């Protein structure tokens, strides 16, 4: 039984704990949060001890095999380092880091380590997105991918929010989805805007993948006020068809070039179809890889690539130029 400690007891932490408990080979062994009320609530839910810091937990008598890090992003690398150095497997919420300098020490710590390290990019665990991935393999890959994501988000710089928070903390999901479907990104050209905001609140990004295909994405924290714009739209064209994924879970429409009728797939009403469910699937995938002692699907390589793409987007916004991503050597593809 894998004994997993949940570090960070907010919304994500609750879902990570639920996921661990639902897995047949894992259990929650402790929870950690600097805020006693949050730690207390999750501790009560799962009947496990609570701690104010990860160090407190590691110095205690509680047996811990793995740590699920669900704190704010600026704490991801320091907490991951602490856990890795203590020999614990780690599953860290996205993003791994806000820039590559931040993550260098972690990369070094993981070299030669037997720790299984993964990052939670849960959007790629939508069953419909998985189905689309399979389809793209059979259709020879994408020619062009567009992803749009719109949600309300912070507009002003604070202790937790930097100027490029939209890119570092939110666009990393979009980037991972594109990388999942189509492989690594070679080059980006980004434009940003500040709409009633002291941070970059909107971005529009052109993408070229290593395999030569094209992509684009847009993201806004400001749009739509309380209007219910579809949270997520994904549009892919291949040699065989155009596919549209609605809101990750709502439906997948396929317009095959050679057939004049569209086909829509939806999930069964008996299937979990919430955003939280994608976190459960993602956590389970990581636990399965820990059990098999294999590199997780969203391990260090993919996660670092995603950080590199974000850094390239920021550089592009600041310079007005197309920027090649660093560190993605060759045309690897995630299987």
């Amino acid at each position, binding site marked *: 039984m894998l004994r997993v400690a949940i570090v960070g007891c907010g919304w994500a932490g609750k879902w990570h704990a639920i996921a661990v408990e639902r897995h047949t080979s894992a259990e929650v062994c402790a929870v950690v949060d600097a805020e006693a009320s949050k730690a207390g609530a999750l501790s009560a839910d799962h009947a496990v001890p609570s701690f104010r810091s990860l160090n407190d937990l590691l110095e205690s008598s509680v047996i811990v095999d793995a740590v699920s890090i669900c704190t704010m992003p600026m704490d991801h690398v320091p907490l991951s380092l602490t856990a890795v150095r203590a020999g614990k497997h780690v599953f860290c919420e996205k993003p791994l880091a806000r820039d590559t300098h931040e993550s260098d020490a972690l990369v070094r710590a993981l070299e030669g380590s037997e720790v299984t390290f993964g990052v939670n990019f849960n959007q790629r665990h939508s069953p419909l997105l998985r189905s689309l991935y399979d389809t793209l393999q059979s259709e020879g890959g994408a020619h*062009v991918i567009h992803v749009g994501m719109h949600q309300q988000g912070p507009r002003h710089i604070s202790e937790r929010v930097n100027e490029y928070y939209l890119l570092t903390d939110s666009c990393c999901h979009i980037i991972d989805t594109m990388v999942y479907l189509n492989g690594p990104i070679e080059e980006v050209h980004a434009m940003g805007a500040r*709409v009633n905001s002291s941070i970059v609140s909107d971005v529009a990004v*052109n993408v070229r993948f290593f395999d030569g295909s*094209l992509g684009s994405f847009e993201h806004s924290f400001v749009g739509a006020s309380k209007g219910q714009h579809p949270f997520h*739209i994904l549009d892919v064209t291949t040699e065989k068809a155009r596919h549209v994924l609605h809101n990750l879970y709502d439906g997948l429409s396929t317009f095959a070039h050679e057939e004049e009728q569209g086909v829509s797939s939806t999930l069964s009403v008996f299937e979990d179809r919430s955003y939280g469910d994608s976190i459960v699937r993602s956590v389970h995938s990581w636990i399965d890889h820990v059990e098999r002692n294999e590199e997780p699907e969203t391990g260090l390589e993919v996660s670092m690539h995603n950080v590199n793409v974000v850094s390239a987007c920021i550089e592009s916004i600041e310079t007005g130029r197309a920027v090649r991503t660093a560190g993605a050597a060759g045309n690897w593809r995630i299987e």
Partner: protein
Amino acid sequence: METIRLGLIGFSQGFYATTYTRYLSRLKEVDVVACCDLGRPQSYVRECAFTTAEQFCGEIDAAHVRNLRELFDLGLNAVLVTSEVSEHALHTIEALENACNVFVGKPLSFRSEEVKSVIRAARGRKEIVLCGNPLRYETGLYRIKQRLEQNAIGTLINLRLMVNHAAMVEQEWERDPMRSGGPLGTYGVYLFDLVRWLTGAEVHELFAEGDTFVYEHIRSDDTVQITGRLSNGALLHINLITTVTWDFPFLILDMVGTEGTIRTDYPCHAYVLQSENGEELGGARYDSLGAMEMEHFVDCCMGRTKPNVPPEAMLPVTRGIEAVTASIARKERILLPS
């Protein structure tokens, strides 16, 4: 003018040539006098229009002529120009000089210098030039424009336009980008004219990438992707995809404003507008775009209205196309003239 004495110039844009002329031939105010095949061989006309010039003229009871001098000698006061795109400007100017009102099939041109020459030729004349863009007559898009003008989604901050249409590759002239403009030249009018018409803003800067995924033989990018910024500060995304063979939905529009969103939803609705005030669904699209475009041309010829797509509206289009081409070639962000 009591009757429009109309001539057709060229069968290269076969769809427009035949469907538009057929439609006009049924209107009481229009007398289709003649069709000119510009001396092109029967095989060329058949390839472009799925008929011969003689057969088509017989069908609509019009004279068949082989050159423009013969055509203008018949005393026309209006023409449809549906020749090869690279000939449009020349034929439009020649028609104006022969006192004809002109409808010119989409696009007027893909070169700014040609558009400027048409603007100069039309200046000070009583004859009008109406440039083709059927989407200007689409009810749902027109209603979207109205709702934007009524501030229904607040300040526009993000616009995505996707045009999804098979590349024109059937005819030899269409495969030659110098004669047709390639996919970008062909559909650029949809991209840039629609953005400008809907938002009332100009494209201020853009970065573009393009590639050829399917149609290697057209010697032009079949997929183009553009990121940009409008003069009002809104971010812009344009995807042009011509590698499809089934072009549904032909167009996707998605606009995000500070107070709401509006987007096309063609499998179900002409558009969906969402804001704090609730949802609004666009009604059924019941108009024949081509018929409305031709009826507008008739109204313009009869002096009842002014062209809603004059040559001046095509200058931002060609500048956009040229900026995209330059950006792809130089891998640079391009600033457009204000």
